[in-house]
């Protein structure tokens, strides 16, 4: 009977519901309550099923949840939206962080990742976590991107943010590290790897045949011929020249403030910024809460919201000042697009027996 329900099985997409004290569960449930927003895929929430059910009631959201103990149950047909149940260690109180639930938060990531790696899930989307409370619990954690890279034994991943129309895609050469460590981290080898991953995923995951990438300099005015720093001359330009010889379509290094103008962006599929605050302010400002984050270079598809846990908004009833699911919905839509594009190889999602 399983085979007839969904003749051409839609891809399963896992959504980790994030920090339970924050707005992650709220946003996930808002998405679950909007069938139109989750069309083209089967949504699987990953988190504590009881907590999510209670939160839905509190928010006044009409959504049927189906608790699943393992991956096989998620893949099996059934009523409502599947929840891959990961139990909380302690009851969650909206707005109040509890370090005792840090391991739970990471547990939801592990569960979703296991599903992606085994091929049950076609992609994972992540709601915000709170880095501080995870570290407070004694677990070193700098972000989803780094965590998933380590868990999949990926040596190097690239963080890319996207949003707006036409889509502006900004990848980062360095991500969450102190600015004083950025110049040292920016080596030829690392930059070469970053650009190679970015180019490969724009082709492979986004289906852009010959992507055009515009690369920013590190320093103001891209160093102005060495007057304001030498990284452009010593690192960035040589790498671009080398990769151009291999056929990549690269422009730069350009001054960042010249780069992010409509004329330059019109000819680019993606931008590579050298550090976090060079590339993201304009993206976040321009996308008005609809920006999303995608991790390139992973063996799986992972997209994410581009905002934090907004503890003060958590569990606010639907008619009051509520959290905006715009970014999460956009992240989910992108995951559906990418999963569908990647689907031919994986169309038969095997409901393999899983150990978790």
């Amino acid at each position, binding site marked *: 009977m399983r085979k007839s329900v969904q003749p051409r099985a839609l891809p399963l997409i896992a959504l980790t519901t994030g920090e339970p004290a924050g707005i992650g569960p709220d946003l996930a449930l808002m998405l679950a309550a909007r069938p139109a927003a989750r069309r083209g895929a089967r949504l699987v929430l990953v988190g504590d099923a009881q907590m999510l059910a209670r939160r839905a009631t509190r928010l006044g959201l009409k959504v049927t949840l189906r608790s699943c103990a393992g991956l096989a149950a998620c893949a099996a047909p059934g009523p409502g939206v599947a929840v891959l149940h990961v139990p909380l260690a302690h009851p969650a109180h909206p707005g109040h962080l509890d370090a005792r639930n840090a391991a739970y938060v990471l547990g939801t990531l592990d569960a979703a990742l296991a599903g992606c790696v085994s091929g049950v899930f076609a992609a994972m989307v992540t709601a915000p976590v709170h880095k501080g409370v995870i570290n407070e619990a004694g677990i070193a954690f700098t972000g989803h991107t780094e965590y998933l890279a380590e868990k999949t034994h990926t040596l190097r991943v690239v963080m890319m943010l996207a949003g707006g129309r036409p889509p502006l895609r900004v990848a980062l050469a360095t991500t*969450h590290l*102190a600015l004083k460590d*950025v110049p040292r981290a920016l080596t030829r080898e690392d930059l070469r790897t970053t650009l190679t991953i970015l180019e490969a995923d724009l082709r492979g995951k986004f289906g852009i045949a010959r992507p055009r990438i515009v690369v920013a300099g590190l320093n103001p005015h891209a160093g102005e011929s060495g007057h304001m*720093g030498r990284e452009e001359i010593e690192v960035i330009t040589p790498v671009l020249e080398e990769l151009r010889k291999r056929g990549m379509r690269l422009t730069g290094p350009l001054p960042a*403030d010249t780069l*992010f103008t*409509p004329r330059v962006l019109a000819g680019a599929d993606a931008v590579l910024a050298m550090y976090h*605050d*060079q590339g993201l302010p304009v993206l976040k*400002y321009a996308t008005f809460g609809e920006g999303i984050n995608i991790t390139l270079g992973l063996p799986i598809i992972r997209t994410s919201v581009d905002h934090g846990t907004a503890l003060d908004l958590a569990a606010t009833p639907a008619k009051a000042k509520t959290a905006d699911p715009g970014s999460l919905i956009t992240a989910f839509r992108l995951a559906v697009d990418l999963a569908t594009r990647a689907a031919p190889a994986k169309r038969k999602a095997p409901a393999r027996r899983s150990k978790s």
Partner: protein
Amino acid sequence: MPLPRIAISIGDPAGIGPEIALKAALSEEVRSLCIPVLVGDRGALELHAAACKLTPEIINVAPERVRELALPAGAVALIARAQLQPGELQLGKLSAVHGRAILDSATVAINAALASQVDAVVAAPQTEKSVQMAGVHFDGYPTFVASVVGVPRDNALLMLCFDDKRIVHVTLHTSVRKAIEQITIPRVEAVILAAVVALQRLGVAAPRIAVSGLNPHASEDGLFGDEEAQIIAPAIARAKAAGIDVEGPFGADTFLAKSGFDAHVVMLHDQGHVAAKALAPNRAAGMTIGTPVLFSSVAHGSALDIAGQNKAKPDAVIEAIKRLARIGTVLH
């Protein structure tokens, strides 16, 4: 209360500067807000006026007479400089003569402001290549203003203005490595203070200031970098203790979108410039603050390709004047 006097240096005589300076000086809106005083070569101004078929009476005025000046309808005032010999002005071209004229006009206007003969300066667009051909190293107006005024170059700060945003830079034209070294508690505190002083002169009685972090997400409580805890937060605390309404450090990627602040202080050139140029292409004007002289450039360049063709619009000059015009409400 007398109207403020605003000097408009006419910029590169070979570009659109004189044309848009003149058009702005003749605009009713500008004349209702201030008494505009042009500064530059009379021959260049007359040539541009003729090209635009404008025939205003051009009244020469000495800087020390600007305060008592009454401007008849249809007339413009000019602090006249002899910068160009007959035949030396080549519209649309680069030359050292043009470069010297640009700096001379700006210098005279700044000195007039320093002597309180005018209240503020607006500079019509310069052409940096011509300035370089004149043998002068030009690193943007803030350092130039500092050198004319005679204060340390680091005192002069760039405040980018567009829409209702004003972005003040703690470091500017220096490599990322050196910029980090320049960010100290006294420096950040001084920049906050300079922003407050400038805003008060611009008519904001009790300015609210937001300050960015240096590191991603303002380091998220020390996860990546400690400059927020060691430098920026203590500087903010000192400014607060001095009675300033200031908040931060905020992650630079989200704080420009925060409303309710009169100025946003950023640590690095690109933290401010990228957003400004992306969100307000050709609308972000640079104001120099932190010196006794309030000085504003305009949001675009000298457009050599359309010089002398009566095609240029004075909007950016008018915009800059409007930002400065409330200065009189506090000074007088």
